[in-house]
Each structure stands twice: as C-alpha cells, then as structure tokens.
C-alpha cells in the first residue's frame, strides 16, 4: 500500500529540550494526522491538518505541541519543551478520500 515515511525511527531526548518529528506523507494526500500510542496500547488522535491549517486537535495536543508543513516538505510535529509523559510512539498518517495510511512511527523517549 501507499507509504508514509517517518524520520527518525527512534529519538532520545532530555526533558525540557525541543524535538521535531518528521513525516513524509503519501504524495497525493491532502490530509495529515499525528497519533500517539503508549506501550502498544490504544492509538490516540492528536491533530489533523489540511490546506496548511490545523483542522482539529484533541486535549492531548498540549500547548507545547505544534505542527506545520512548510512549502510541501515534511509534515512535522514539534514538542517544545518536552516532558517525561511525552514518551510514546508517535505515528504520522495521511489520507486523500477516506483510507488513512500510517507510517511506522517514531519512538520518542524523554529522559
């Protein structure tokens, strides 16, 4: 199926530092998403993004989180500053008209 690429696959960062997670969505997709998964459990919606704007965000999308996709490059999730509870696997996803495809995730460890 269509591939969503995420870079890096793992990231270890000191608490309080900034981290940027990168996503290369499927080329013709217009809707982009970030989800959070802790310890292989439930996938939790964070935010979705369309036409350069955030469409909807959940209560998990704290003020320290931001997303952007400058000039059609990577779709990014930035966390600044990071907290211990931000440790999780973050999945990027994209869709065009229905089917949502996920990347392999970035495992973020905040120490």
């Amino acid at each position, binding site marked *: 199926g269509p591939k969503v690429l995420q870079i890096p696959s793992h990231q270890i960062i000191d608490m309080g530092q900034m981290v940027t997670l990168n996503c290369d969505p499927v080329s013709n997709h217009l809707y982009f998403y970030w989800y959070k998964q802790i310890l292989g459990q439930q996938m939790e919606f964070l935010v979705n993004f369309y036409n350069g704007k955030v469409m909807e965000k959940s209560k998990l999308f704290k003020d320290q989180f931001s997303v952007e996709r400058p000039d059609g490059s990577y779709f990014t999730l930035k966390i600044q500053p990071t907290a211990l509870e931000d440790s999780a696997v973050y999945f990027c996803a994209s869709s065009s008209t*229905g089917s949502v495809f996920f990347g392999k*995730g970035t495992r973020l460890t905040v120490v």
Partner: protein
Amino acid sequence: QQQVRQSPQSLTVWEGETAILNCSYEDSTFNYFPWYQQFPGEGPALLISISSVSDKKEDGRFTIFFNKREKKLSLHITDSQPGDSATYFCAASGGGSNYKLTFGKGTLLTVTP
C-alpha cells in the same frame, strides 16, 4: 467514555480455525469503520474497512459483519494462519472531509500452529 470498544482483549486460535474479533461503538454519527493490523514495532496497516451503508464486506479471508442498529461489528478471519498473529484495531470515523479516527484498545490475536 470509551467511544470504541473491542473484545476480547486477547484471543488464541488454532491454525485453520476462524478468529472472531468484536467491536462496538457509541457515537451514532460514525459511518466508516476500518480495521488495522499491527505487528510489534510496526505501524498499523489498513486491513479492511466498511461503511455504514453495508452490512458485510469481504476481502479474501477477512470479513466484516456490521449491525448498525446494535452499533456492533465483527472481523472474521477464516483459515487463520500463524502469520495473522498481531494486534487488530477497530476504528471509526464520521467520514466527511475529516477522517479523524477513533480507535479501540485492540485485540491481540495469537494463531497457534
């Protein structure tokens, strides 16, 4: 409040048997229901999906049965194979132009040879 519920939490079947994974939902505006398969260390992969206008969707060994009145659906995996061992997530969305998915907690399926 859990919007999408899955049962059982884990399931073990023998190779060749049919595995039945259950899902129910609360929000009557949900109209699109994909199932995802996830292997350890991987992202969820879209397996099969159904819209609320249908009561059955089949794709090879995988079939979704959907009951809109009871807000329930199930995924049947016939002739289960050891390679089917994974976590299966039921998800739901209200469709439209948003496609925001609400996931259940997943069912861990183990197929024993």
